[in-house]
């Protein structure tokens, strides 16, 4: 990157000072994080304990409650109230944490390429997230109130263990808000040379604080699933780090970071589609088409590794507790996983459809049209395997015809190795859609173009064969331990193909000839609905999976430690849960549309000259 050295006049010096302040703030944050009493290592803490005497005696075991210990409000179902507040808070939080991640990247790209369009787009993204940010905070407050109100004992127990992290969490929120506002409102002020660097650093700080906030909240949630730092009666050992760093903390951290990016991408994609569909001028359409494309690119890039993060999380849940694992995948919740599989497939399908539609932006794409149907056949085929359930829903007649609940040919498609194979194939072919899309308006001019193509074909063929071999061999001819193990080389194969072929493509199409120009804005409305579908499917999916994640604790507030004795401690039926999540999704979508709309309102002006007194001359 080439950045001109700043001229050292008075103004830049001031900016430099500002930069220094920001830097110090960041440093302070780092020191703060290190010196959080609860966050240091267990050893140090033990030493501290030895100093202050036996501190542990002050902690109470988890209370044994009865239904009378849960306050109620007439006409309000406390569980659903908490459920919806938590879910809405999470949706918004996921969105506002994700947007700064890619805004930071886009801003950096803009700085590197000196292409102002990137900077404008990054600004527009962050603008959308500003209103959403206040929703996040309001809903977070609502959730806290509802917890204190309806589950006071649980809240008290949790806060006795997480007192430090809750305290610093609240403080960090100030820092988060300050940085966000500085980042957003200072966007046009901090432009050019050194100031831009300061701005970018603010973005980095914003992301650091945001991620830290989420990790802390994740600790509370995962503690409830896989408690650590407490004895079987729930008596806290006093080691806050152990409680934070519990068994499922990191798997959830990883899964949430990746999922948030994909989710944030899909929501801003919906925003771009919204603006595209309501735009009247062709430049506007071009702009929002381009923005939607980039948002979709972000969403899909993060979506590709997501199944693997999910798989890791599930494996860890199994490893933590067989009971939880079976509840998750084999028991009541198994049916929700079928819905999950359907929704994930929908994500892949709509993302691919969007790409195919987008090829219409260039006349050069006609060369690739004939391949699309093969992509579709493979992706849909893989998708059918991916959602084939392990236990089939059979009518009695079918049961009799089959002679049992197992299907000789479809049954084997129900287990993990088949699904892993399918999802890897699905990911590879989505990558292929991308490659076609990128090539749509270009012809490679390098001398080794045909060799390069041959290498890529060979790469894909070998990789797909390898994935099949691993899936079939390890899935059906070895035991369970290897079934799990087989998924890793499969993933590695997929990743290798994606990375290598993208690299080859990048070199091959360097300085490539344009067949036909790319017309941004020349894309069908249908493709924009695909972007909407992506956002809605994502939201619904997160709601359902979030319910499962929380629901596998069954009748426990804190698994095996703190029992939920409220009248609502049952595991709801599928229809009931799906209804709550659907209502949540609709509420969220309504709020999001409000956010989109309000982002638009600020730029509208109504001339009302006649209304105001003419100023005295």
């Amino acid at each position, binding site marked *: 990157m080439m950045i001109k050295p700043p001229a050292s006049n008075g103004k830049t010096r001031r900016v430099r000072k500002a930069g220094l302040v920001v830097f110090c703030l960041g440093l302070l944050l780092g020191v703060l994080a290190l010196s959080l009493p609860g966050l240091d290592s267990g050893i140090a803490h033990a030493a501290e304990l030895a100093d202050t005497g036996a501190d542990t005696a002050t902690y109470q075991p988890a209370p044994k409650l009865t239904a009378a210990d849960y306050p109620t409000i007439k006409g309000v179902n406390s569980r659903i109230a908490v459920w919806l507040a938590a879910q809405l808070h999470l949706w918004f939080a996921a969105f506002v944490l994700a947007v700064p991640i890619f805004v930071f990247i886009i801003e950096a790209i803009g700085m590197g390429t000196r292409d102002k369009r990137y900077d404008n787009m990054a600004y527009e993204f962050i603008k959308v997230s500003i209103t959403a940010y206040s929703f996040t905070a309001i809903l977070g407050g609502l959730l806290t109130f509802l917890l204190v109100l309806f589950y006071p004992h649980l809240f008290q127990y949790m806060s006795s263990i997480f007192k430090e992290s809750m305290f610093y969490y609240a403080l960090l929120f100030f820092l988060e808000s300050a940085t966000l506002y500085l980042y957003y409102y200072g966007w046009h002020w901090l432009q050019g040379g050194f100031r831009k660097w300061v701005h970018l650093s603010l973005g980095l700080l914003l992301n650091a604080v945001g991620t830290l906030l989420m990790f802390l909240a994740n600790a509370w949630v995962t503690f409830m699933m896989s408690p650590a730092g407490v004895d079987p009666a729930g008596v806290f050992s006093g080691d806050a780090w152990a409680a934070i760093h519990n068994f499922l903390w990191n798997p959830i951290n990883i899964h949430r970071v990746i999922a948030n990016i994909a989710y944030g991408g899909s929501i801003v994609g919906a925003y771009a589609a919204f603006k595209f569909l309501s735009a009247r001028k062709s430049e506007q359409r071009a702009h929002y088409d381009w923005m939607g494309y980039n948002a979709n690119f972000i969403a899909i890039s993060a979506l590709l590794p997501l199944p693997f993060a999910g798989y890791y999380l599930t494996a860890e849940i199994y490893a933590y507790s*067989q009971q939880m694992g079976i509840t998750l995948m084999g*028991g009541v919740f198994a049916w929700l996983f079928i819905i999950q599989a359907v929704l994930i497939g929908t994500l892949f399908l709509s993302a691919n459809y969007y790409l195919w539609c987008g090829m219409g932006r260039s006349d050069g794409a006609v060369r690739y049209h004939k391949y699309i149907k093969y992509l579709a056949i493979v992706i849909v085929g893989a998708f059918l395997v991916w959602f084939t359930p392990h236990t089939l829903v059979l*009518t009695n007649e079918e049961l009799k015809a089959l002679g049992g609940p197992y299907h000789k*040919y*479809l049954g084997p498609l129900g287990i993990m190795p088949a699904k892993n194979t399918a999802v890897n194939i699905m990911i590879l072919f989505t990558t292929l859609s991308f490659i076609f899309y990128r090539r749509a308006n270009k012809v490679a001019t390098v001398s080794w173009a045909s060799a390069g193509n041959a290498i890529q074909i060979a790469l894909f063929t070998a990789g797909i064969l390898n994935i099949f071999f691993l899936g079939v061999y390890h899935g059906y001819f070895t035991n369970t331990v290897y079934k799990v193990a087989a998924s890793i080389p499969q993933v590695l194969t997929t990743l290798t193909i994606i990375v290598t072929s993208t690299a080859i493509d990048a070199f091959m199409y360097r300085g490539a000839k344009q067949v036909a120009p790319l017309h941004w804005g020349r894309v069908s409305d249908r493709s924009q609905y695909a972007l909407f579908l992506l956002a809605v499917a994502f939201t619904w999916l997160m709601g359902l999976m979030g319910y499962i994640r929380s629901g596998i604790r069954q009748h426990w507030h804190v698994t095996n430690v703190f029992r939920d004795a409220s009248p609502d401690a049952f595991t709801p039926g599928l229809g009931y849960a799906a209804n709550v999540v659907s209502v949540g999704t609709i509420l969220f979508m309504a709020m999001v549309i409000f956010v989109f709309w309000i982002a638009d309102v600020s730029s509208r002006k109504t001339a009302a000259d006649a209304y105001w007194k003419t100023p005295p001359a």
Partner: protein
Amino acid sequence: MKIPRLLQAVGVIVGIYAGFVLVFDYLLGQVIPSSLLSMYMFFVIAGVFMVYTFTEESARELVAPIKALVEDPSKKRIRNVVFILIPLLVAGFTYQRMSPSFEAPVELRSIHPAPPATVKAYGKRYDLATLKNPFRKYEKAKPEKFRELVREGGDIYIQNCQYCHGDKLDGRGPYAAGLNPTPLNFQDVGTIAQLQESFLFWRIATGGPGLPKEAAPWISSMPVWQDFLTEEEIWKVILFLYDYTGRRPRSWEHE
């Protein structure tokens, strides 16, 4: 003559549907469950739609006949026929769906419900998270002793279990045909191959009556073996189940 796109699309969808039925119901002799088939077809239709509409021209061609039907004045007669026929078809379908039949309702029964954290059997409490097969250690330490235990497990199996689970452990014992739910097939990749030994211990010791709520209705005929076999006998028969089928119990330690 070029076939109109709409007809092509419909042809592809019908063809795939017929293909599923033909392959599964006739060629392979294992019916494809209607619930699954409707899910498959939903996404097949979505896929076909995607392929036929991703370019402007193609999308226009696809809907052209429908548009013409609605807008073209010369097609008035067909239009009227279609506009009467479609609501009738929908009504007929709805009637069919809603009218009661003798078919028992479909049950979403989970075959592998989550085990409880602890199990009561033989007057003791077992913690399923830590429960291990006491004989498993001999597999490496004393192979001869292990073989002997497996053989004893085999005898127990033949004396007690094969009537239902079959002498090949494939769930097709002489009584199996009369039971619903059917005895499980231990050769299948989806049963014992993905369970831990403690899970099997729980299921064998407490049988059908020991199933938790989510495995309702409690119609499983699996007997309560703690009434007939000793604790050791159950562990031995578990050894046999894995040994005979060549499967390994699920565990998280790599060997």
